[in-house]
């Protein structure tokens, strides 16, 4: 069939592909419609669980406020999940990607106008069990973030030395996770996000 019968022939040959495309397109669209809300609900619940841990029982969340911020030169989208108690926003859960021993994602919790740190939770991580995952497991390390001043830099000091003001001690043996991963990410994200979130709120209300 070397003779050219024009492009219609090709479509003719491809009728199968085309009908399949149509069929599957439609089908998937259907699936999408059914599942989308559930999936988003799942994500919200997932976040909510962590917010509850930080802000206490009864906390819920809603659609995230997405803010565009530039962090060391690169434009990023950051999700700010509102922490709601009986409908009223009492704080933020800011979902931020960072680099520890491996890439990790934190949920940084602050009060409603991003002045005071309430704590953090690890959302996604690949840190080494036994070393890096102390940033999830060591309560003493995790808890020390509550109440720190979110407006100022956190200062990392080696484990064992006593901390004052905005200092936090980092886990020896897991410097990368604790210092670079947690402290570093918080210091990197908050300054950029704070104004953005506030701005978003202003025009929101």
């Amino acid at each position, binding site marked *: 069939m*070397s003779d050219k019968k024009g492009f219609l022939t090709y*479509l003719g040959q*491809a009728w199968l592909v085309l009908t399949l495309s149509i069929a599957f397109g439609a089908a998937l*669209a*259907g699936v999408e419609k059914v599942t989308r809300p559930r999936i988003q609900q799942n994500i919200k619940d997932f976040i909510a669980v962590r917010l509850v841990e930080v802000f206490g029982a009864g906390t819920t969340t809603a659609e995230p406020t997405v803010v565009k911020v530039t962090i060391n030169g690169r434009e990023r989208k950051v999700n700010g999940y509102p922490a709601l108690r009986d409908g009223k926003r009492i704080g933020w859960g800011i979902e931020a990607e960072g680099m520890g021993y491996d890439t990790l994602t934190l949920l940084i919790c602050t009060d409603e106008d991003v002045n005071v740190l309430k704590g953090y939770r690890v959302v996604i991580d690949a840190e080494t069990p036994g070393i890096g995952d102390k940033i999830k497991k060591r309560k003493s390390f995790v808890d020390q973030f509550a109440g720190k001043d979110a407006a100022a830099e956190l200062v990392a000091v080696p484990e064992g030395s006593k901390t004052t003001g905005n200092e936090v001690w980092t886990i020896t043996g897991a410097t990368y996770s604790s210092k670079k991963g947690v402290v570093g990410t918080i210091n990197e994200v908050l300054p950029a996000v704070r104004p953005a979130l506030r701005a978003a709120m202003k025009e929101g209300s």
Partner: protein
Amino acid sequence: MLLTIGLAILVMLALGVCFAMLLGWANVAWKVDVPLQLRQLTDAMPGANCGGCGYIGCAEYAEAVFRGEAPPDKCPVGGAAVARHVAEIMGIDLQETLPYRPVVHCGADYDCRLKRAEYTGERTCGAANLVAGVQGCTYGCLGFGDCEWACQFDAVKMVNGLAVIDYDKCTGCGACAKACPRHIISMVPFKAERIVVVACSSKDPGKVVRSVCTVGCIGCGICQKLNELFTVTDNLASINYDHYDAQADFAPVLAKCPRQTLIYVGKPSAKDLAAVAGEELPERVEADFKTTVDDADYRG
């Protein structure tokens, strides 16, 4: 809802059309006809890639046949069946050939081979063949089994230091013949279940042979006298397989041979027999018995 579906369909369709067009067009415009024949040929090959055909692999051979450079019956593994299949794919008529099968021209196991020295070198025939005095006979089987190693159909077994071929497993690929550094394995046309072979390769004078082997051919010439198939040239009997007649009665010769050098070997598979039913025979391949590599120059 509808909007989403519509959009989805739209996108899919768009892409579908693009690729349908592109591929369809390309399929015509950039057509390279991989010839059907070639594909069939490649499929027809056993795919053992043993190289017995003398090509790197089945595919190579298939291409060679396709280009008309190779005869259709080169594949010993596939044998007659494949040969016929190939031939009809190529639409040529195939003059059936005999199944060539290896025979070991040595009948002396460890007990029959005299003057065997203790040898502590690399234990392969190829290596031992380069060292003088591993055993008295410099023509016969060394017994380290290079052929066994070479045969990928494990059709060669070493029996008390002598290579013995299992003709049920053997596919006639000839690897063993190539592997033997003493060239005592030759591929001969099997026209019968079992054929007579001269199980010796020694061209030495009878006296010498006697001193190193209890079964070797001493070139006495009795067989020559009794049966015209046999000829004795430099102290070694050989059989002319061109006129070999399966039905002929070799009992007298075998009985008369003073050294039991003449023996029956073989039993090719039914397939082979079918393939060879009533064919007249092509030239037989002459094995050239070398005692050692002649290009190893003397030093020290």
